Protein backbone atom coordinates (compact mmCIF):
# COMPACT_ATOMS: atom_id res chain seq x y z
CA UNK A 1 0.00 0.00 0.00
CA UNK A 2 2.95 2.28 0.17
CA UNK A 3 3.97 1.86 -3.44
CA UNK A 4 0.78 3.03 -5.05
CA UNK A 5 1.66 6.68 -5.24
CA UNK A 6 1.03 6.83 -8.97
CA UNK A 7 -2.67 6.10 -8.52
CA UNK A 8 -3.14 8.95 -6.08
CA UNK A 9 -5.39 11.68 -7.43
CA UNK A 10 -3.33 14.67 -8.40
CA UNK A 11 -5.41 17.06 -6.37
CA UNK A 12 -4.20 15.50 -3.15
CA UNK A 13 -0.57 16.36 -3.59
CA UNK A 14 0.67 18.68 -0.85
CA UNK A 15 0.95 22.17 -2.24
CA UNK A 16 -1.81 21.58 -4.76
CA UNK A 17 -4.00 23.71 -2.50
CA UNK A 18 -2.13 26.90 -3.23
CA UNK A 19 -2.21 26.24 -6.99
CA UNK A 20 -5.91 25.58 -6.78
CA UNK A 21 -6.41 28.74 -4.74
CA UNK A 22 -4.54 30.76 -7.34
CA UNK A 23 -6.56 29.21 -10.14
CA UNK A 24 -9.82 29.95 -8.35
CA UNK A 25 -8.60 33.52 -8.13
CA UNK A 26 -8.24 33.54 -11.89
CA UNK A 27 -11.65 31.97 -12.32
CA UNK A 28 -13.09 34.85 -10.32
CA UNK A 29 -11.82 37.11 -13.07
CA UNK A 30 -13.59 35.06 -15.70
CA UNK A 31 -10.58 33.05 -16.87
CA UNK A 32 -12.01 30.10 -18.78
CA UNK A 33 -8.70 28.25 -19.01
CA UNK A 34 -8.31 28.44 -15.25
CA UNK A 35 -11.83 27.10 -14.85
CA UNK A 36 -10.85 24.17 -17.04
CA UNK A 37 -7.89 23.46 -14.75
CA UNK A 38 -10.03 23.84 -11.64
CA UNK A 39 -12.58 21.45 -13.10
CA UNK A 40 -9.89 18.82 -13.57
CA UNK A 41 -8.85 19.11 -9.95
CA UNK A 42 -12.25 19.12 -8.28
CA UNK A 43 -14.77 17.35 -10.50
CA UNK A 44 -14.01 13.82 -9.32
CA UNK A 45 -14.19 14.78 -5.66
CA UNK A 46 -17.39 16.76 -6.14
CA UNK A 47 -19.04 13.96 -8.08
CA UNK A 48 -17.79 11.41 -5.55
CA UNK A 49 -19.35 13.03 -2.52
CA UNK A 50 -22.54 14.10 -4.28
CA UNK A 51 -23.04 10.59 -5.58
CA UNK A 52 -22.30 9.09 -2.17
CA UNK A 53 -24.94 11.24 -0.50
CA UNK A 54 -27.61 11.33 -3.21
CA UNK A 55 -27.03 7.90 -4.76
CA UNK A 56 -29.42 8.38 -7.64
CA UNK A 57 -27.10 8.73 -10.67
CA UNK A 58 -29.17 11.21 -12.65
CA UNK A 59 -29.75 13.50 -9.69
CA UNK A 60 -26.12 13.21 -8.67
CA UNK A 61 -25.00 14.36 -12.06
CA UNK A 62 -27.39 17.26 -12.02
CA UNK A 63 -26.28 18.40 -8.58
CA UNK A 64 -22.61 17.95 -9.51
CA UNK A 65 -23.16 20.22 -12.46
CA UNK A 66 -24.83 22.78 -10.21
CA UNK A 67 -21.95 22.70 -7.77
CA UNK A 68 -19.29 23.10 -10.45
CA UNK A 69 -21.22 25.97 -11.92
CA UNK A 70 -21.49 27.50 -8.47
CA UNK A 71 -17.71 27.37 -8.22
CA UNK A 72 -17.57 29.37 -11.45
CA UNK A 73 -20.25 31.78 -10.35
CA UNK A 74 -19.03 32.43 -6.81
CA UNK A 75 -15.26 32.08 -7.23
CA UNK A 76 -14.87 35.65 -6.03
CA UNK A 77 -16.31 34.60 -2.69
CA UNK A 78 -13.53 32.15 -2.01
CA UNK A 79 -11.29 33.54 0.71
CA UNK A 80 -7.97 31.73 1.11
CA UNK A 81 -7.67 33.21 4.58
CA UNK A 82 -10.59 31.17 5.76
CA UNK A 83 -9.70 27.70 4.61
CA UNK A 84 -8.29 25.60 1.82
CA UNK A 85 -9.86 25.77 -1.63
CA UNK A 86 -10.74 22.09 -1.46
CA UNK A 87 -12.59 22.61 1.82
CA UNK A 88 -14.52 25.45 0.20
CA UNK A 89 -15.44 23.34 -2.80
CA UNK A 90 -16.37 20.30 -0.75
CA UNK A 91 -18.49 22.42 1.55
CA UNK A 92 -20.46 23.69 -1.43
CA UNK A 93 -20.78 20.18 -2.81
CA UNK A 94 -21.78 18.45 0.39
CA UNK A 95 -24.26 21.09 1.36
CA UNK A 96 -25.95 21.00 -2.02
CA UNK A 97 -26.14 17.24 -1.91
CA UNK A 98 -27.59 17.23 1.56
CA UNK A 99 -30.09 19.96 0.69
CA UNK A 100 -31.23 17.98 -2.33
CA UNK A 101 -31.67 14.83 -0.30
CA UNK A 102 -33.64 16.62 2.38
CA UNK A 103 -35.90 18.40 -0.06
CA UNK A 104 -36.93 15.20 -1.81
CA UNK A 105 -37.36 13.14 1.28
CA UNK A 106 -40.48 11.29 0.35
CA UNK A 107 -41.46 8.21 2.26
CA UNK A 108 -40.21 5.61 -0.19
CA UNK A 109 -37.07 7.61 -0.74
CA UNK A 110 -36.33 7.74 2.94
CA UNK A 111 -36.91 4.03 3.39
CA UNK A 112 -34.58 3.22 0.59
CA UNK A 113 -31.96 5.47 1.99
CA UNK A 114 -32.33 4.16 5.53
CA UNK A 115 -31.58 0.72 4.24
CA UNK A 116 -28.52 1.84 2.37
CA UNK A 117 -27.22 4.31 4.90
CA UNK A 118 -26.88 1.54 7.42
CA UNK A 119 -23.66 0.51 5.72
CA UNK A 120 -21.86 3.67 4.72
CA UNK A 121 -18.70 2.72 6.53
CA UNK A 122 -18.42 -0.57 4.66
CA UNK A 123 -18.77 1.33 1.45
CA UNK A 124 -15.94 3.58 2.43
CA UNK A 125 -13.90 0.52 3.17
CA UNK A 126 -14.67 -0.96 -0.17
CA UNK A 127 -13.92 2.23 -2.05
CA UNK A 128 -10.64 2.53 -0.29
CA UNK A 129 -8.41 0.22 -2.24
CA UNK A 130 -6.71 2.38 -4.72
CA UNK A 131 -5.23 5.41 -3.17
CA UNK A 132 -3.05 6.44 -0.31
CA UNK A 133 -5.47 9.19 0.53
CA UNK A 134 -8.33 6.78 0.86
CA UNK A 135 -6.20 4.51 2.94
CA UNK A 136 -5.29 7.38 5.20
CA UNK A 137 -8.93 8.39 5.65
CA UNK A 138 -9.93 4.81 6.34
CA UNK A 139 -7.19 4.44 8.91
CA UNK A 140 -8.21 7.64 10.65
CA UNK A 141 -11.87 6.65 10.65
CA UNK A 142 -10.73 3.41 12.25
CA UNK A 143 -9.02 5.31 15.04
CA UNK A 144 -12.36 6.72 16.19
CA UNK A 145 -14.66 5.08 18.70
CA UNK A 146 -17.51 3.23 17.10
CA UNK A 147 -20.05 5.85 18.14
CA UNK A 148 -17.88 8.66 16.81
CA UNK A 149 -17.34 6.87 13.53
CA UNK A 150 -20.99 6.04 13.05
CA UNK A 151 -22.07 9.57 13.93
CA UNK A 152 -19.69 11.04 11.38
CA UNK A 153 -20.34 8.59 8.55
CA UNK A 154 -24.12 8.63 8.93
CA UNK A 155 -24.07 12.41 8.90
CA UNK A 156 -21.52 12.99 6.19
CA UNK A 157 -22.09 10.10 3.83
CA UNK A 158 -25.71 9.46 4.78
CA UNK A 159 -26.76 13.11 4.81
CA UNK A 160 -28.59 12.77 8.12
CA UNK A 161 -29.11 15.50 10.68
CA UNK A 162 -27.71 14.92 14.14
CA UNK A 163 -31.25 14.36 15.35
CA UNK A 164 -31.79 11.62 12.80
CA UNK A 165 -28.42 10.11 13.62
CA UNK A 166 -29.34 10.10 17.30
CA UNK A 167 -32.54 8.20 16.66
CA UNK A 168 -30.84 5.76 14.29
CA UNK A 169 -28.21 5.02 16.91
CA UNK A 170 -30.59 5.23 19.87
CA UNK A 171 -28.52 7.77 21.79
CA UNK A 172 -29.36 11.26 23.05
CA UNK A 173 -28.91 14.12 20.59
CA UNK A 174 -26.51 15.87 22.94
CA UNK A 175 -24.26 12.83 22.84
CA UNK A 176 -24.29 12.76 19.06
CA UNK A 177 -23.43 16.44 18.84
CA UNK A 178 -20.41 16.08 21.08
CA UNK A 179 -19.31 12.85 19.39
CA UNK A 180 -19.43 14.56 16.02
CA UNK A 181 -17.28 17.37 17.23
CA UNK A 182 -14.81 15.11 19.04
CA UNK A 183 -14.62 12.86 16.01
CA UNK A 184 -13.83 15.68 13.63
CA UNK A 185 -11.16 17.02 15.95
CA UNK A 186 -9.56 13.58 16.01
CA UNK A 187 -9.89 13.16 12.28
CA UNK A 188 -8.38 16.56 11.73
CA UNK A 189 -5.40 15.69 13.88
CA UNK A 190 -5.06 12.21 12.42
CA UNK A 191 -5.19 13.47 8.84
CA UNK A 192 -2.64 16.14 9.62
CA UNK A 193 -4.92 18.91 8.46
CA UNK A 194 -3.19 22.20 8.99
CA UNK A 195 -5.01 24.45 11.41
CA UNK A 196 -6.14 27.63 9.83
Amino acid sequence: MTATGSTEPESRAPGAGSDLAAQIGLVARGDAAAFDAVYEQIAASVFGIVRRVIRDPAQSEEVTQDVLLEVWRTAAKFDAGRGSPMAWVMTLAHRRAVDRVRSVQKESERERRTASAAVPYDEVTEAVESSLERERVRRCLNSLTELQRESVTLAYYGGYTYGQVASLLGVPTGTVKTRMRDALVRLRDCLGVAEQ
Partner: protein
Amino acid sequence: MNPSEPNPRRIQMPWRKMRGQGAHTLAGAYALDAISAADRVRFERHLAGCQECAQEVASLREATARLGTATATTPPAGLKDRVVTAAAMTRQQPPAVGDTDSAARARLPRVGRWFGSLAWPGRLALAAGAVVAVVVLGAAVVFGVANGSIRQQLDQAQASSQQIAAVLTARDARMMTGPVTGGGTATIVMSHSRHALVFTAAGLRALPAARGYELWLIGPAGTRPVGMLSLGSRGTTGPVIASGLRHGDHLALTAEPAGGSSQPTAPVMLYVAL
Protein backbone atom coordinates in the same frame (compact mmCIF):
# COMPACT_ATOMS: atom_id res chain seq x y z
CA MET B 1 -26.60 49.82 50.52
CA ASN B 2 -27.98 51.49 47.47
CA PRO B 3 -31.75 51.18 47.49
CA SER B 4 -31.92 51.32 43.71
CA GLU B 5 -29.41 48.51 43.31
CA PRO B 6 -31.00 45.93 41.03
CA ASN B 7 -32.65 43.09 42.83
CA PRO B 8 -30.36 40.12 42.15
CA ARG B 9 -33.18 37.63 42.49
CA ARG B 10 -35.05 39.20 39.66
CA ILE B 11 -32.25 39.72 37.25
CA GLN B 12 -30.02 36.75 37.89
CA MET B 13 -29.77 35.45 34.36
CA PRO B 14 -28.64 32.09 33.14
CA TRP B 15 -27.60 33.85 30.04
CA ARG B 16 -23.87 33.87 30.52
CA LYS B 17 -23.98 30.14 30.85
CA MET B 18 -25.62 29.82 27.48
CA ARG B 19 -22.59 30.89 25.64
CA GLY B 20 -20.41 27.75 25.63
CA GLN B 21 -22.96 25.02 25.78
CA GLY B 22 -25.69 25.54 23.24
CA ALA B 23 -23.99 27.03 20.30
CA HIS B 24 -20.44 25.76 20.47
CA THR B 25 -21.27 22.07 20.62
CA LEU B 26 -22.95 22.48 17.26
CA ALA B 27 -19.60 23.07 15.55
CA GLY B 28 -19.19 19.40 14.61
CA ALA B 29 -22.74 18.91 13.42
CA TYR B 30 -22.54 22.14 11.47
CA ALA B 31 -19.29 21.16 9.76
CA LEU B 32 -20.96 17.90 8.77
CA ASP B 33 -24.07 19.72 7.49
CA ALA B 34 -25.94 17.59 9.99
CA ILE B 35 -28.26 20.34 11.17
CA SER B 36 -31.61 21.61 10.05
CA ALA B 37 -31.82 24.71 7.88
CA ALA B 38 -33.15 26.71 10.82
CA ASP B 39 -30.27 25.64 13.07
CA ARG B 40 -27.85 26.42 10.30
CA VAL B 41 -29.06 29.99 10.04
CA ARG B 42 -28.94 30.38 13.79
CA PHE B 43 -25.45 28.95 14.05
CA GLU B 44 -24.16 31.08 11.21
CA ARG B 45 -25.42 34.14 12.98
CA HIS B 46 -23.43 32.96 15.97
CA LEU B 47 -20.35 32.35 13.83
CA ALA B 48 -20.47 35.87 12.50
CA GLY B 49 -19.75 37.17 15.97
CA CYS B 50 -17.45 34.44 17.26
CA GLN B 51 -14.08 34.30 15.61
CA GLU B 52 -12.93 31.35 17.68
CA CYS B 53 -15.95 29.33 16.59
CA ALA B 54 -15.45 30.31 12.97
CA GLN B 55 -11.87 29.14 13.15
CA GLU B 56 -12.86 25.88 14.72
CA VAL B 57 -15.48 25.26 12.09
CA ALA B 58 -12.95 26.07 9.36
CA SER B 59 -10.51 23.53 10.72
CA LEU B 60 -13.23 20.90 11.05
CA ARG B 61 -14.26 21.62 7.48
CA GLU B 62 -10.76 20.66 6.41
CA ALA B 63 -11.37 17.27 7.98
CA THR B 64 -14.80 16.77 6.43
CA ALA B 65 -13.39 17.81 3.06
CA ARG B 66 -10.99 14.89 3.28
CA LEU B 67 -13.89 12.54 3.97
CA GLY B 68 -15.32 13.93 0.75
CA THR B 69 -12.26 13.78 -1.46
CA ALA B 70 -11.74 10.18 -0.37
CA THR B 71 -14.87 9.33 -2.35
CA ALA B 72 -13.51 10.80 -5.60
CA THR B 73 -15.12 9.08 -8.57
CA THR B 74 -14.63 9.76 -12.25
CA PRO B 75 -17.60 11.86 -13.34
CA PRO B 76 -19.71 10.85 -16.33
CA ALA B 77 -18.38 11.67 -19.77
CA GLY B 78 -19.95 14.79 -21.16
CA LEU B 79 -20.29 16.51 -17.81
CA LYS B 80 -17.30 18.73 -18.41
CA ASP B 81 -18.63 19.96 -21.74
CA ARG B 82 -21.96 20.79 -20.20
CA VAL B 83 -20.41 22.58 -17.24
CA VAL B 84 -18.02 24.60 -19.36
CA THR B 85 -20.80 25.52 -21.78
CA ALA B 86 -23.09 26.52 -18.95
CA ALA B 87 -20.30 28.56 -17.34
CA ALA B 88 -19.78 30.49 -20.56
CA MET B 89 -23.43 31.54 -20.39
CA THR B 90 -23.48 32.29 -16.68
CA ARG B 91 -22.71 35.63 -15.19
CA GLN B 92 -20.33 35.53 -12.23
CA GLN B 93 -21.01 37.13 -8.89
CA PRO B 94 -18.91 40.18 -8.16
CA PRO B 95 -16.54 40.10 -5.20
CA ALA B 96 -17.84 41.39 -1.90
CA VAL B 97 -16.86 44.95 -1.23
CA GLY B 98 -19.58 46.19 1.09
CA ASP B 99 -19.87 45.30 4.72
CA THR B 100 -23.38 44.10 4.16
CA ASP B 101 -22.12 40.87 2.65
CA SER B 102 -22.29 37.98 5.05
CA ALA B 103 -18.75 36.90 4.27
CA ALA B 104 -17.51 40.33 5.11
CA ARG B 105 -19.52 40.35 8.29
CA ALA B 106 -17.96 37.05 9.28
CA ARG B 107 -14.61 38.76 8.91
CA LEU B 108 -15.40 41.41 11.50
CA PRO B 109 -13.95 39.36 14.33
CA ARG B 110 -13.35 42.24 16.69
CA VAL B 111 -17.02 42.89 16.87
CA GLY B 112 -17.19 40.40 19.57
CA ARG B 113 -17.52 37.10 21.14
CA TRP B 114 -20.81 36.21 22.70
CA PHE B 115 -21.29 39.52 24.38
CA GLY B 116 -17.60 39.95 24.79
CA SER B 117 -17.40 43.64 24.31
CA LEU B 118 -14.51 44.94 22.32
CA ALA B 119 -13.71 48.37 21.10
CA TRP B 120 -14.17 49.01 17.43
CA PRO B 121 -11.08 50.41 15.87
CA GLY B 122 -11.97 53.82 14.56
CA ARG B 123 -11.95 53.12 10.88
CA LEU B 124 -13.96 49.96 11.18
CA ALA B 125 -16.45 51.75 13.35
CA LEU B 126 -16.81 54.49 10.80
CA ALA B 127 -17.20 52.14 7.87
CA ALA B 128 -19.63 49.82 9.59
CA GLY B 129 -21.33 52.73 11.28
CA ALA B 130 -21.99 54.41 7.99
CA VAL B 131 -23.62 51.27 6.66
CA VAL B 132 -25.74 50.81 9.76
CA ALA B 133 -26.61 54.48 9.81
CA VAL B 134 -28.06 54.26 6.32
CA VAL B 135 -30.17 51.31 7.39
CA VAL B 136 -31.13 53.14 10.53
CA LEU B 137 -32.21 56.26 8.70
CA GLY B 138 -34.46 54.22 6.49
CA ALA B 139 -35.85 52.22 9.37
CA ALA B 140 -36.42 55.20 11.61
CA VAL B 141 -38.37 56.95 8.91
CA VAL B 142 -40.51 53.92 8.26
CA PHE B 143 -41.20 53.22 11.93
CA GLY B 144 -41.75 56.87 12.75
CA VAL B 145 -44.97 57.48 10.89
CA ALA B 146 -47.24 55.21 12.88
CA ASN B 147 -49.25 57.99 14.50
CA GLY B 148 -49.32 61.73 15.08
CA SER B 149 -48.62 64.21 12.37
CA ILE B 150 -46.31 62.86 9.74
CA ARG B 151 -44.25 66.01 9.81
CA GLN B 152 -43.66 65.75 13.54
CA GLN B 153 -42.92 62.09 13.31
CA LEU B 154 -40.41 62.63 10.57
CA ASP B 155 -38.68 65.29 12.63
CA GLN B 156 -38.51 62.93 15.56
CA ALA B 157 -37.30 60.12 13.38
CA GLN B 158 -34.60 62.32 11.99
CA ALA B 159 -33.49 63.49 15.43
CA SER B 160 -33.44 59.92 16.64
CA SER B 161 -31.49 58.71 13.64
CA GLN B 162 -28.97 61.49 14.13
CA GLN B 163 -28.55 60.35 17.71
CA ILE B 164 -28.17 56.80 16.50
CA ALA B 165 -25.59 57.79 13.94
CA ALA B 166 -23.69 59.69 16.63
CA VAL B 167 -23.45 56.54 18.75
CA LEU B 168 -22.48 54.34 15.83
CA THR B 169 -19.68 56.62 14.75
CA ALA B 170 -18.38 57.51 18.23
CA ARG B 171 -14.70 56.74 18.73
CA ASP B 172 -15.46 54.65 21.79
CA ALA B 173 -18.36 52.79 20.14
CA ARG B 174 -18.48 49.20 21.26
CA MET B 175 -20.62 46.51 19.73
CA MET B 176 -21.92 43.47 21.54
CA THR B 177 -24.14 40.72 20.37
CA GLY B 178 -25.69 37.76 22.12
CA PRO B 179 -28.71 35.53 22.58
CA VAL B 180 -31.97 36.58 24.15
CA THR B 181 -33.44 34.08 26.58
CA GLY B 182 -36.51 32.59 24.97
CA GLY B 183 -35.22 33.18 21.46
CA GLY B 184 -33.60 35.82 19.32
CA THR B 185 -30.36 37.71 19.11
CA ALA B 186 -29.70 41.16 20.43
CA THR B 187 -27.09 43.60 19.20
CA ILE B 188 -26.01 46.62 21.15
CA VAL B 189 -23.74 49.43 20.06
CA MET B 190 -22.88 51.66 22.98
CA SER B 191 -20.85 54.76 23.55
CA HIS B 192 -20.15 56.13 26.99
CA SER B 193 -18.89 59.36 25.50
CA ARG B 194 -22.32 59.83 23.90
CA HIS B 195 -24.13 58.52 27.00
CA ALA B 196 -26.25 56.35 24.77
CA LEU B 197 -26.64 52.98 23.16
CA VAL B 198 -28.42 51.62 20.13
CA PHE B 199 -30.34 48.40 20.51
CA THR B 200 -31.58 46.07 17.80
CA ALA B 201 -32.79 42.51 17.92
CA ALA B 202 -33.92 39.82 15.55
CA GLY B 203 -35.79 36.58 16.02
CA LEU B 204 -37.57 37.67 19.19
CA ARG B 205 -40.46 35.44 20.13
CA ALA B 206 -43.86 36.95 19.47
CA LEU B 207 -45.71 37.87 22.65
CA PRO B 208 -49.46 37.79 23.33
CA ALA B 209 -51.22 40.89 22.00
CA ALA B 210 -51.57 42.46 25.43
CA ARG B 211 -47.85 42.23 26.13
CA GLY B 212 -44.71 43.74 24.70
CA TYR B 213 -40.97 43.85 25.17
CA GLU B 214 -39.64 46.64 27.31
CA LEU B 215 -36.05 47.80 27.57
CA TRP B 216 -34.51 49.04 30.79
CA LEU B 217 -31.35 50.67 31.99
CA ILE B 218 -30.53 49.45 35.46
CA GLY B 219 -27.65 50.73 37.54
CA PRO B 220 -26.46 52.91 40.38
CA ALA B 221 -28.67 55.72 39.09
CA GLY B 222 -31.70 53.51 39.42
CA THR B 223 -33.93 51.58 37.07
CA ARG B 224 -35.05 53.61 34.07
CA PRO B 225 -37.46 52.39 31.39
CA VAL B 226 -36.07 52.94 27.91
CA GLY B 227 -39.27 52.14 26.16
CA MET B 228 -41.44 49.49 24.57
CA LEU B 229 -40.15 47.77 21.47
CA SER B 230 -42.33 47.43 18.43
CA LEU B 231 -41.84 44.06 16.87
CA GLY B 232 -41.53 43.75 13.11
CA SER B 233 -41.74 40.68 10.99
CA ARG B 234 -39.62 37.77 12.12
CA GLY B 235 -39.14 39.27 15.54
CA THR B 236 -36.99 42.16 14.44
CA THR B 237 -36.98 45.36 16.35
CA GLY B 238 -35.20 48.65 16.49
CA PRO B 239 -32.88 50.32 16.09
CA VAL B 240 -33.87 51.95 19.33
CA ILE B 241 -31.80 54.59 21.04
CA ALA B 242 -31.39 54.55 24.81
CA SER B 243 -29.92 57.76 26.11
CA GLY B 244 -28.83 58.64 29.61
CA LEU B 245 -26.39 55.78 29.75
CA ARG B 246 -24.12 55.85 32.80
CA HIS B 247 -21.15 53.84 33.89
CA GLY B 248 -22.20 50.79 35.84
CA ASP B 249 -25.47 50.45 33.95
CA HIS B 250 -26.94 47.19 32.75
CA LEU B 251 -29.34 46.82 29.88
CA ALA B 252 -32.33 44.58 30.57
CA LEU B 253 -35.15 43.27 28.43
CA THR B 254 -38.42 42.05 29.90
CA ALA B 255 -41.94 41.25 28.78
CA GLU B 256 -44.46 43.67 30.21
CA PRO B 257 -48.09 44.71 29.70
CA ALA B 258 -48.35 46.53 26.37
CA GLY B 259 -48.61 49.89 28.11
CA GLY B 260 -45.32 49.40 29.91
CA SER B 261 -44.48 48.93 33.59
CA SER B 262 -42.89 51.10 36.22
CA GLN B 263 -40.57 48.29 37.25
CA PRO B 264 -39.26 45.33 35.28
CA THR B 265 -40.89 42.03 36.05
CA ALA B 266 -39.30 38.61 35.81
CA PRO B 267 -38.33 36.79 33.76
CA VAL B 268 -35.58 39.00 32.44
CA MET B 269 -34.70 37.93 28.91
CA LEU B 270 -31.54 39.90 28.63
CA TYR B 271 -29.24 41.44 31.20
CA VAL B 272 -25.97 42.85 29.99
CA ALA B 273 -23.32 44.90 31.72
CA LEU B 274 -22.54 48.02 29.73
